[in-house]
């Protein structure tokens, strides 16, 4: 079991778990830059609670996810993005 098996797409086990291919939005369109001063781009990578979306959901590449995380943290410090959004009162 140590080696990774080459399973074809037709295999029963994998037929129902084919995820849609995700792509890095910043790689695809170079017009959009990650800037901590521009919260409009950053806020789409936050969950409802204000957390940073994980890479497996957002599809970002490693480099852009790193830059994004840094930008979000910087934006939080100057108060233009939330640390958390608490809906429970």
């Amino acid at each position, binding site marked *: 079991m140590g080696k990774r098996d080459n399973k074809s797409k037709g295999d029963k086990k994998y037929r129902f778990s084919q995820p849609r291919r995700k792509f890095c939005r910043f790689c695809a369109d170079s017009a*959009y830059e990650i800037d901590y001063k521009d919260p*409009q781009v950053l806020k*789409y990578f936050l*969950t409802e609670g204000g957390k940073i979306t994980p890479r497996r959901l957002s599809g970002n590449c490693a480099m852009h996810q790193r830059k994004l995380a840094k930008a979000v943290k*910087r934006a939080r410090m100057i*108060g233009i993005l939330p*640390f958390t959004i608490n809906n429970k009162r």
Partner: protein
Amino acid sequence: MVFKLERIERIREYEIIYIMKPDLTDDEQKNLVKKIEDIIAENKGEVLKTTSMGKRKLFHETKGQLRGSFVHSIFLGNNKLVPELERKLRIDENVIRYQTIKLVDLVADVEARKEFYNSPKFEETAAVIAKPIKEVKDDYDKFRPRGV
């Protein structure tokens, strides 16, 4: 063999955002911006560009304030300037938050950097900085990841 360590005074490029209290008058705001530019000038620095980001709502209460006037400034200076500037900002009652970020570690050509900040290429960036959040349209919908 003996190595001689020469100390080179590096010129670095920084950007700073500081948030002023929202209820300051125009004159008070101008004085504060002037005061901060003076601090930079006194400590062998040089201000390249200062942009007002306008009054914005803060996501969390900072020093009892829910709003603040943002100022963005780009300046050149050595490593001793930033701690001094931040010390002065911390003392100032009218500043509720500040954040300094290093943009360039070693500025080789000072004139080129000055030129850049006066070029139309930078104006686009400045437009993003100065854009009030309320007026920004949500044209980033394609950014929204699925399931979020």
